[in-house]
């Protein structure tokens, strides 16, 4: 019975992996393609044209990767901190008007980014923040915060403040009680919130274009026009970089967290 279940589980796993990986492999194949006319199963000619463009072209890869990862990391960090504090205000301190805050935090999930980005753009221009990194960070925050906040409210409500109360009567100040007792329990939520906001920022196209005015370059910003213009080989190479770099960032992130965890337990 158990063995059967295991086999079934493995079959499902393999199937999902195949469904996701095979199309991804086709993209990798496309990125090396010179010509691939119908009805060939494999490309007729191979080429490294796309990789030349990627590395030495109009927007060289290292700078592009650097600014994308930096931007997404800043957004992820800020939105996690803001979400944690907001969740604490609405769930633990039960501030007046918390219903309104919850509603407002939820709005950007409902209203499409293309809609509010217009209004946001006007505000940025008035504030003199258009075409700047700060402006892009702000608009990405609006996109990422609802998810970070949703994760952190559930987490904060589940953790509660009972243990913090206990730590305080044992002699810990409010801040110390939070750091010693509550924060370690929030870690899973903080990690999901960070990852979620990172990937949301990483994959923004329209909001980046509008707020950054092309001055702030990200991989998504370069990738999307190639998809629209129909250069399959070039859009494939950027897709490979997009997915690959996100995966690498998450792998590094996970490893760092594991190391930090081990350090904390010693």
């Amino acid at each position, binding site marked *: 019975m158990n063995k059967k279940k295991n086999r079934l589980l493995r079959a499902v796993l393999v199937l999902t992996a195949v469904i996701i990986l095979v199309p991804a492999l086709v993209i990798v194949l496309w990125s090396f393609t010179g010509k691939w006319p119908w009805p060939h199963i494999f490309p007729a000619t191979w080429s490294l044209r796309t990789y030349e463009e990627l590395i030495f072209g109009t927007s060289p890869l290292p700078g592009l990767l650097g600014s994308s990862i930096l931007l997404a990391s800043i957004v992820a960090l800020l939105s996690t901190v803001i979400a944690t504090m907001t969740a604490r205000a609405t769930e633990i301190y039960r501030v007046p008007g918390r219903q309104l805050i919850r509603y407002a935090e939820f709005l950007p999930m409902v209203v499409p980014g293309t809609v509010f980005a217009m209004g946001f753009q006007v505000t940025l221009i008035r504030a003199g923040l258009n075409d700047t990194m700060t402006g892009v960070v702000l608009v990405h925050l609006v996109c990422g915060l609802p998810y970070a906040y949703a994760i952190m409210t559930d987490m904060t409500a589940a953790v509660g403040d009972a243990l913090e109360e206990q*730590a305080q*009567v044992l002699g810990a100040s409010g801040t110390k009680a939070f750091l010693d007792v509550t924060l370690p329990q929030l870690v899973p939520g903080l990690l999901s919130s960070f990852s979620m906001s990172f990937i949301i920022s990483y994959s923004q196209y329209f909001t980046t274009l509008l707020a950054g005015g092309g001055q702030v370059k990200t991989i998504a910003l370069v990738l999307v026009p190639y998809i629209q213009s129909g250069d399959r080989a070039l859009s494939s190479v950027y897709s490979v970089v997009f997915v690959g770099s996100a995966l690498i960032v998450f792998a590094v992130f996970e490893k760092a967290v594991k190391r930090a965890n081990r350090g904390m337990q010693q």
Partner: protein
Amino acid sequence: MIKLSIEDLQVKLGKNVILPDISLQVEEGAFISLLGPSGCGKSTLLKAIAGIYPASKGTVQLNGREITDLPPHKRNVVIVFQDMRLFPNMSVAENVAYPLKIRKVGAEQRRSEAEKLLSDVQLEGFGDRRIHQLSGGQQQRVALARALAARPDVLLLDEPFSALDENLREGMRALVKELHQKFRMTTILVTHDRQEAMSMADKAAVMMDGKILQYDEPTEIYHHPADEHVAEFFRDCVYLSGSVEGGVFRTDGRIELPLGIDDGTYDVMLKAGAVPEKKEAE
């Protein structure tokens, strides 16, 4: 020599007045119990003493020092909660040593004190376990050891035994009494169990609807309840309504009772006579 002194304390949660006006004096080293039905405000009183709930009126004094406006961590008043509230991210020994760590006691001394306290609560050698590896009774004992590690001026126990099995409860009561004899810290036990309140404490305060109805020695409360609410809370009793005329009490039925008291309407209370003996296992 009064250790803990609460005067005219009022506690509000939001707009609700939970405790309208409480006064209570607890002598140094005494073991008292707060007894009352659930929702009577006894846990609120504990949290107000510990500083978790702010007082809207009145004062709390400890050894003559006013602590009414001090935050919880500066009062040295520790609560052991019913749900234990052990820290899941720390081992058993780290939990017990937590108050010492806050007080910046060195690692060596922390470890040896935690070990000593763990043996006081009969958990020798459990220091390296994780919290989830312990049974409910063991967790409660860890919570107790951790509270003792803080060397509190006042130890507050909020229904600490109600989450335990009956047979574990008896052992825990004995342990708490034993630890009180040993450390002699002022202790307030909140409970809704009458037997527990009466058998463990030097003095008991009976609470109802946010008020202390009677604060006295257990036998005194038992034999001379201050009013019928206290009497009713302690046992099943029967009231006979009637009136006294010419020194004789009469009910509507056929009961006649010669009583040398003034004429008027009275309630006569009947209750079982003796304090029930604690049953020993045979």
